[in-house]
C-alpha cells in the first residue's frame, strides 16, 4: 500500500516536471480576431515558422471586443479593433506602445495611409493597419437594371433620392445596422462634414434617413452577404470585402445572380482594422513576432487575395492577384481615394445623439 502511494507520488511529481518543462518550451500567443478574417494558411504558417502555438478566438463586433477590453484583464495578446474604436481604447489606456525595434519590416507600410491613421493613433505608436475597406453600394446587376433602367449605379442618389429607392424597395434594400457608419454617409451626401458633431447637422441627416426609411427592407450588418447572393434583396449598403464575398458566393452558386460593388462618386466612408497589443498582454515578444509576420508582403498579399480587402502594405500590392489589384472597388484609383473619409472617434454626447437618432429612424420611436 505504502509502495503504491510512493509510486503515485513519484508519477505525479514526474508529470508536473514534464508539464513545467513543456510550458517553458511551448511559447503561446493568444489572438482575438474578427470571425472569417484570416486566410486558411495565415495562422498555421506562422505557427510553423515561429514555433509559437496560437490560441485563436473570434468576435463579430467591435462592441463585444471593447466590452472585454474595458472590463480589464482580457487575457489576449493581439486584438484587431476598427480605427475609431482603437482611438477611444488608446485613450482609456488599453494598449501598450509597439516596440518598433522588434518590427524590422515596419517600412513596408504605406506612408500615406499611416498618416491618415494618425487621427486614431497619433504617431502610429500603438497599432499597424491590418486590412481596410470602404462602405459602398453592393447590388444585383440585373434586378436593379429591371427597376431603375439604364441609370448608372455610381452615386448616393440611388439610395438617398426617394424616387430611386422607392423602386428598389420592390426587390429589397438593406442598410448596415450601424448609426456611426450610415449617419456620416447621409451627412456627406448633404454636403456637410462626415464627422460633424453639430446637433443641427445630425438632425438634417436624421431627417434625410427618415424620408427613405419606408423603403428599407431591413437593417443588419452581415445578413446582406447571403441575401444579395441569393437574390432576396437587390441593393445593400455594406462593407466592400463582405460585398465581394457576396459576389463570389453568387458566382459559386452558378452565376444566376450577378453582384457588383461600387464606391459612389461622391466618396464613401472607410474603415481600418488595426492590430494592437493590450497593455496586460503576457506574451509581448510573441505578439511583436506576429505583427512583424503580418508585415511580410507575401502574407499580406495572400490575405488580400483571400479576403478581397485591400491591405496597407506597399510591397504587397505587386504580389496581389491582378484581377483584385486592378479592381477599382478594392484598390480605388487616386481620384476616388481623395474623396474617401474615415470615421473619427466621437465624443460620448455625439455618440448618444446618433444612437438615439438611429432608434428613431428604425423603430419610429
Amino acid at each position, binding site marked *: 500500500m505504502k509502495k503504491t502511494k510512493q509510486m503515485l507520488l513519484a508519477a505525479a511529481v514526474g508529470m508536473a516536471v514534464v508539464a513545467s518543462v513543456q510550458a517553458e518550451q511551448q511559447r503561446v500567443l493568444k489572438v482575438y480576431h474578427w470571425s472569417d478574417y484570416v486566410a486558411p494558411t495565415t495562422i498555421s504558417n506562422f505557427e510553423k515558422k515561429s514555433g509559437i502555438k496560437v490560441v485563436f478566438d473570434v468576435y463579430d463586433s467591435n462592441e463585444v471586443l471593447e466590452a472585454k477590453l474595458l472590463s480589464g484583464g482580457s487575457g489576449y495578446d493581439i486584438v484587431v479593433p476598427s480605427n475609431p474604436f482603437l482611438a477611444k481604447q488608446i*485613450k482609456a*489606456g488599453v494598449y501598450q506602445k509597439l516596440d518598433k525595434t522588434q518590427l524590422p519590416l515596419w517600412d513596408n507600410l504605406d506612408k500615406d495611409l499611416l498618416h491618415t491613421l494618425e487621427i486614431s493613433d497619433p504617431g502610429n505608436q500603438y497599432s499597424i493597419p491590418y486590412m481596410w475597406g470602404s462602405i459602398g453600394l453592393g447590388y444585383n446587376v440585373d434586378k436593379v437594371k429591371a427597376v431603375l433602367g439604364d441609370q448608372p449605379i455610381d452615386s448616393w442618389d440611388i439610395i438617398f433620392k426617394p424616387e430611386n429607392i422607392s423602386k428598389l424597395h420592390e426587390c429589397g434594400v438593406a442598410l448596415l445596422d450601424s448609426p456611426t457608419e450610415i449617419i456620416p454617409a447621409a451627412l456627406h451626401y448633404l454636403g456637410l462634414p462626415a464627422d460633424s458633431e453639430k446637433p443641427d447637422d445630425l438632425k438634417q441627416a436624421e431627417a434625410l434617413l427618415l424620408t427613405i426609411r419606408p423603403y428599407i427592407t431591413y437593417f443588419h450588418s452581415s445578413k446582406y452577404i447571403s441575401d444579395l447572393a441569393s437574390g432576396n434583396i437587390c441593393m445593400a449598403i455594406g462593407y466592400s470585402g463582405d460585398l465581394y464575398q457576396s459576389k463570389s458566393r453568387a458566382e459559386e452558386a452558378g452565376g444566376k445572380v450577378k453582384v457588383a460593388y461600387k464606391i459612389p462618386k461622391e466618396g464613401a466612408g472607410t474603415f481600418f482594422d488595426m492590430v494592437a497589443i493590450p497593455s496586460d498582454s503576457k506574451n509581448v515578444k510573441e505578439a511583436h513576432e506576429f505583427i512583424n509576420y503580418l508585415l511580410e508582403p507575401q502574407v499580406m498579399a495572400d490575405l488580400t487575395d483571400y479576403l478581397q480587402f485591400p491591405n496597407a502594405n506597399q510591397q504587397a500590392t505587386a504580389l496581389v492577384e491582378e484581377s483584385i489589384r486592378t479592381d477599382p472597388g478594392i484598390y480605388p484609383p487616386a481620384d476616388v481615394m481623395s474623396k474617401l473619409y474615415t470615421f473619427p472617434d466621437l465624443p460620448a454626447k455625439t455618440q448618444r445623439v446618433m444612437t*438615439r437618432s438611429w432608434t428613431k429612424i428604425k423603430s419610429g420611436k
Partner: protein
Amino acid sequence: MTIREKLLGMLPKGRHAVIGVPFFWMLLFFLLPFAIIIKISFAEADIAIPPYTSLTEWADSQLTVLLNFGNYVLLSEDQLYIAAYLGSLKIALISTVLCLLVGYPMAYAIARSSKQMQPVWLLLIMMPTWTALLIRVYAWMGILSNNGLLNNALLWLGVINEPLQILNTNIAVYIGIVYAYLPFMVLPLYANLVKHDLSLLEAASDLGAKGYTAFWKITVPLSKSGVIAGCMLVFIPVVGEFVIPELLGGPETLMIGKVLWQEFFNNRDWPVAASLAVIMLLILIIPIILFNRNQAGEMEGKA
C-alpha cells in the same frame, strides 16, 4: 473555557448553519452583484478601465462621495425608455397569457395520464431544453423566414400565394418566447395538478357539478398557486429577454433588453445601462412581492 472553544462557540451551529448557507448564497450571488450595479448607476461614464468614474475619493484625509443622479434623470427625460419598459411589459404579459393557455391543457393532460406515461411526457417537455437556446432560436429563423419551412409548406398547399412576412415581426417574437418558456409554465402546473385529490371531483360529481363546472369550481381554484408560480417563471425573465427579440424581432420590436445593449455597447455608457437595469429590477420586484405574499398566505392556510 479555552480560547479555542470560545471561538468555536461563535460559529453558527446546526440549524443556523443550515439556514445560513442559502442566505450566504443569496448575499454572494444576488445582493453583491446588485450592489455593484447600483454603485455603477451613480457613477459617470469615463474613458478608462473600467469605463466609469469612482464614487469615492480619498484626498487630504477627506473622503468625498460623489453620487451622480444624472443617469436616472436622463431616463425620465426621454420617452424612449418608458416606451421600451412598456414594450417589454406588454410582450411579457401577452407571452405569459399565451404560455398559460397552451401550457395548462398540456399540464392537465400529463397529470391525468397514467403513472407510467407521466415521466415520458415530462421528458418530452424537457427534452428541447437540452439543446442550447441560441440554436433553437436559429432553427425558428429557418422555419419562419420568407423562403423557410412554414412559408414553403403553405405555398405548396396553396393556402397562400405570397410568402407571409413572419420573421422580423412581433409575431415571430411571440412564437419564439412561448416556445422557449413553455416548459417553465408546464412543470410547476404539473407539479400542482398531480397532487390534486381526485375524490374531490367525485364528490362534486355526486353533488351535481359535472365536467366543465367541476373543472372551473374545483380544479382551477386549487391550481392557483401553480398558475402563479408558472406565470412568474415566464413573466420575469421575458421582461429582460434579449436573444429572442434580437434574432426573431424586427425594427418595431422595442424591448428594454435591446435598449440596455445599446447603452452598454453603442454608447459605452455603463452607468446609464446600470440605472436602466436597476429600474427594471424595481419594476419586477412588485410581482415578486405579490407572489411571496400569495405563497405566505398559502402556507398559513395549510397550517
